[in-house]
């Protein structure tokens, strides 16, 4: 029995795209994640929410390999990828955009897009394949096409996030981890970025895990939500249910 795309609920034989089981991770003596379990289905958006220090960023870093888990498992399409290095995770199909570190400012727009291709699996990709991927990105994002030879440092905040999304498109990961993509952006630009995230999920089938301070905005576009507090999961449900739970919102999400 296949579940309809969008609920993120694994049923029958369908394997959820990303499964994190009882993950334990921390920094030195500080335990930031205490047996966290989440699961994200193909082509869905899962919002990870909670107050500062709840462990949201650490969760993404543990999944992408930046932080080595001390316990638990990370499964990508059913295959155990726990403990791999960031480079290996990227090549396995997990793309992570850390907070405030989306583009390499000193490189040009086109060079940033080419970086996206470095995680393509295998070798022997032809120049034509690369050119096709770039064209596809430029078609979707016309303003990037105009600035392809300019350094990324000349882009505005919203345009940089556009470049980040475009690079994710080029990289074609299985899972995309976004840490605060709308941070520091004007509300109108924030909305545009959120729209681009939704399109990325729907049109490319990428599984997106989204950490956002802006919980209301995140729940508006997500299929499912996970609320963390002090390194533990305090709620997992589909986004509409979480958004309707006023007590939960007030207690953990600030609205």
């Amino acid at each position, binding site marked *: 029995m296949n579940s309809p795309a969008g609920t993120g609920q694994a049923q029958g034989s369908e394997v959820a795209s990303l499964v994190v089981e009882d993950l334990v991770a921390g920094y030195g003596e500080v335990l930031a994640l205490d047996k966290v379990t989440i699961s994200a289905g193909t082509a869905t958006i899962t919002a990870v929410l909670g107050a500062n220090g709840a462990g949201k960023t650490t969760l993404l870093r543990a999944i*992408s390999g*930046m932080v080595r888990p001390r316990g638990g498992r990370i499964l990508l399409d059913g295959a155990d990828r726990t403990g791999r*290095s*960031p*480079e290996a995770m*990227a*090549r396995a199909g997990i*793309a*992570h*955009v*850390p907070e405030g*570190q*989306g*583009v*390499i*400012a*000193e*490189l040009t727009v086109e*060079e940033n897009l*080419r*970086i*996206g291709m*470095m*995680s*393509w699996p295998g070798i022997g990709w032809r120049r034509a394949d690369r050119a096709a991927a770039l064209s596809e990105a430029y078609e979707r994002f016309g303003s990037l096409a105009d600035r392809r030879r300019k350094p990324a440092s000349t882009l505005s905040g919203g345009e940089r996030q556009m470049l980040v999304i475009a690079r994710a498109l080029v*990289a074609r990961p299985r899972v995309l981890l976004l840490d605060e993509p709308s941070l520091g952006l004007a509300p109108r630009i924030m909305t545009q970025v959120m729209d681009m995230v939704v399109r990325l999920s729907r049109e490319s089938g990428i599984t997106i895990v989204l950490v956002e301070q802006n919980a209301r905005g995140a729940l508006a576009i997500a299929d499912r939500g996970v609320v963390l507090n002090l390194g533990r999961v305090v709620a997992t449900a589909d986004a509409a249910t979480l958004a309707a739970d006023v007590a939960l919102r007030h207690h953990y999400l600030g609205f």
Partner: protein
Amino acid sequence: MVEFLQFTLSGLSFGMIYAAIALSLVLIWRGTRLLNFAQGGMAMFTTYIAIEVIHGTGSYWAGFVVALAAGVVLGAVAELAVIRPSLGKPELNAVIITIGLLILIEGLAGIFYGGQYRSFPAAFSVIGLKVGSTPLGISRFDLFVAAAVLATTLLLALGFRYTSAGLRMRAAAFNATIARLSGIRVARVVTVGWALAGLLGALAGVLVSPSTFLYPNSMDSIFVFGFTAAVIGGLDSPAGAVVGGLLLGLALSYAGGYLGSQGSNLTPLVALGILVVVLMLRPDGIFSGTRVRRV
């Protein structure tokens, strides 16, 4: 006027050597944020290897090529065996390790090859060229030095700019985190950086040794001048390394030429003086894009 021309051309020629060393230091600095104090020693060692090959085969160019290849290998081996284990630990460890590597290499050279000064052949004639009857102060060999360093620098610049491997190296140098998260094997990129730096050092060694003779400490002062040039130009800037090398070469040549009989003894002081002035006025170096925090 003729004197000025001679000092200028001679200064530019030596400046190219300093530029090569400076470039090798900048390569390593950008990749690993380390100063490789052993760079001069490694260059000296590959020059000894060259002279063994030259005497064994009778061919200068065989020695030249083997020296460059040895530089590549020595650079990669140094990174893998000596430097890599020190990453993630306090930065001072790595600095001490490179100094230790320098002492080790110079000691080994002394054991294998002895301490006496050895002459090293020049690729081309070292007879001064003349325009009409006016001596220019440079020789065919000096022109070769300039051409070799410029060609290598240009090849490296083109490689960085236009190849996929070059893009990986630049990405890793600018933002190692994003690079790793994009699937770039940053550790491998760093090794390649050290290998290229080793190549540049080896080139500097064979180009300068005809003038300085070859002995275990022969590259020490060249290293200091190359390091000075790198700092003047800005440790982050390859263009700065080349310009810094040329400027330093000119300054030292004028100092040595115009300061009378003590001129050549004063050149280290002049280099130090320039370094102090640049660091006081523009601590990041003349060409650096980054800003140094003032303490």
